[in-house]
């Protein structure tokens, strides 16, 4: 069936079609199934800022590390953030030095840790797009209602649609269509993407993660682009509804307010981040540890990115991993220079692991 889809795509895409995916899981799926190699040359696949780990600014990583290095703090995080380089160290390196840093699969595990370690401040470093936010919101509500006073969340959450708008407005890379993130869309539905065809004439297909899902979406996008008929389509109809998940949306809105946020590589984007509301200020690590965080961020701002590192451009889709002087040489998963290499969903990590590294004998 895959072969049939590829044939149809080749038939439809007579001229170059530039499609951007903005979800780390899609980046990885494209490689894991070898889809890139199967598609015709007219389909150009770009990787955008779809990896929440990669777009977390260095200053926020430094803040988490500083908290982890505070004597009475246990820093809890998803595994992905462990290897990300901050300005001079990483959470993984600090754990090796004996700091209290724990990896969890779910934010509720972080709250359990707080309930157990009553003598310590437990801070959950919350990184992720809309997919992760509702469960973090629920955890914050549970902490507040359960009177757990030693638990707080350092929110580095971001939301996708404003980033898509920023990419399109910047105009430095031509995009004909977006392969829209499947799980984010389970939460937000299809409506938040409507501005993309309406204001920019770019097609959108909300896509699942199986190889046939992706191929089918590429076909739909190629057809829309060829017909000049840009709109938003749900390809992942198994789980995505146009209205999304109202319960999850309500949960998010109850705990978080949109805030301007810095995206690595894209700069500040209006209303693209999530800050914890006043009602839950007791669970907000950015307020509880405000002086320390401010001091750390000021120091981070004075540190420049490693010379030659083009993570920012990779995240915007203007250049690829193979264009980077560090890629595969001084920047490898074992010794990453930038976050795109160390994140399990980073574009550079995908290229390195699955197919593009130069001279790896």
């Amino acid at each position, binding site marked *: 069936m895959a072969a049939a889809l590829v044939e149809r795509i080749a038939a439809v895409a007579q001229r170059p079609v530039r499609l951007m995916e903005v979800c780390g899981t899609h980046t990885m799926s494209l490689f894991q199934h070898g889809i890139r190699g*199967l598609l015709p040359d007219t389909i150009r696949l770009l990787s955008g800022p779809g990896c929440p780990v990669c777009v977390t600014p260095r200053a926020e990583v430094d803040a988490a590390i500083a908290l982890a290095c505070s004597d009475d703090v246990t820093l809890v995080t998803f595994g992905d953030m462990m290897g990300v380089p901050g300005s001079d160290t990483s959470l993984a390196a600090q754990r090796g030095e004996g700091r209290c840093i724990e990896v969890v699969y779910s934010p509720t595990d972080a709250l359990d840790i707080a309930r157990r370690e009553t003598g310590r401040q437990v801070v959950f470093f919350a990184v992720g797009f809309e997919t992760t936010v509702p469960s973090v919101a629920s955890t914050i509500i549970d902490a507040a209602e359960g009177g757990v006073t030693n638990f707080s969340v350092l929110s580095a959450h971001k939301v996708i649609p404003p980033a898509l708008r920023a990419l399109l407005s910047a105009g430095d890379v031509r995009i004909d269509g977006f392969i829209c993130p499947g799980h984010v869309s389970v939460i937000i539905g299809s409506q938040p993407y409507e501005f993309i065809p309406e204001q920019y004439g770019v097609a959108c297909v909300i896509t699942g993660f199986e190889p046939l899902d992706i191929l089918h979406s590429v076909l739909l996008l190629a057809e829309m682009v060829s017909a000049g008929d840009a709109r938003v389509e749900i390809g992942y109809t198994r789980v995505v509804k146009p209205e999304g998940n109202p319960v999850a949306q309500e949960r998010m809105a109850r705990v978080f307010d949109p805030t301007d946020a810095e995206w690595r590589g894209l700069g500040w984007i209006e209303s693209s981040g999530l800050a914890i509301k006043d009602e839950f200020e007791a669970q907000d690590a950015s307020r509880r540890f405000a002086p320390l965080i401010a001091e750390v961020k000021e120091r981070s701002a004075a540190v420049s990115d490693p010379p030659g590192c083009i993570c920012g451009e990779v995240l915007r889709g203007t250049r690829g991993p193979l264009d980077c002087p560090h890629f595969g040489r001084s920047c490898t998963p074992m010794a990453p220079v930038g976050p795109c290499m160390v994140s399990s969903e980073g574009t550079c990590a995908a290229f390195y692991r699955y197919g593009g590294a130069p001279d790896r*004998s």
Partner: protein
Amino acid sequence: MAGTITLGHGSGGKLSRELIENSFLPRLRSPELARLNDAAAITVSDDNLAVSTDSFVVTPLVFPGSDIGRLAVYGTVNDLAMLTARALCLSAAFIVEEGFAVETLEQIAESMAAASHEVGVPIVAADTKVVERGSADGLFINTTGIGAIQRTPPPSADRAQVGDKIILSGTVADHGIAVLMARNQFPFRADIASDCAPLWRLVETMLSTGAELHALRDPTRGGLATVLNEIAGAANVAITVEEAAVPVAEPVRGACEMLGLDPLYIANEGKLVAVVAPDGADRLVAAMREHERGREARVIGEVTGEHPKGRVTVTTRIGGSRILDLLVGEQLPRIC
């Protein structure tokens, strides 16, 4: 080399390899050790003997399908079997943390005795050390085994040749996932048990077919992907694997998907990979399937003359292709 040992150094992937190559091999200066097979061939009088050692730091100590004791016996017996060595005897060394329950220690000893009896390999030497509370996590066990090699020269990773078929004896990732699930409270339940099992009888059956076995490995820490990379690297060849041919039990596949893990990298404790000259492949698979430990045996790939050498490539379910590289750092700590 970095100044401190990280968990990644124990994963069986690239960092482990670096530690071995930079810190151990140059100091130990042992040619047989440097071949990096699962056991070492030595000659004593007229017999060719194999020696293998392994330490077991799995947590939790007991998990569905097995426990640290049984694992410690089968693990070393299997490593010897990979050199076609019939295990003759084992030693066992215990490092116990102060405060560990004697009853638990005894249960584990019972389990080791039962395993040793089942495979007919006596534990002939042992040692026990106790360390202060906090200096070890419960119990660590090392076993060392000596075996009599049945085929000379024995299989070795560096003997894989272009055209060889690669055979896998059964489903992958059962052990690692069983341990992981026993360790953590996941919001899902699954009926997954470790595949921990002795492999000598299966190897004996394989030897009786007369098929020309070039390499035999058991894919423990680091999984199938690591073993294939080690073979490709040692023999300086390329390997291709059909993803659809690698059997993964449904519940294990589901757990891997939910946890974002790749079954090809997850430890197995009752499986083997055989690299065999092509004319023997079919009869080898047929013979393996007659044996209880090889019911799901099948050809999963082959050794090719492609470039670059040392590379392992996977043909995906939809006909695409991707590189299967060594892991960096640790995916799942302390699963064996």
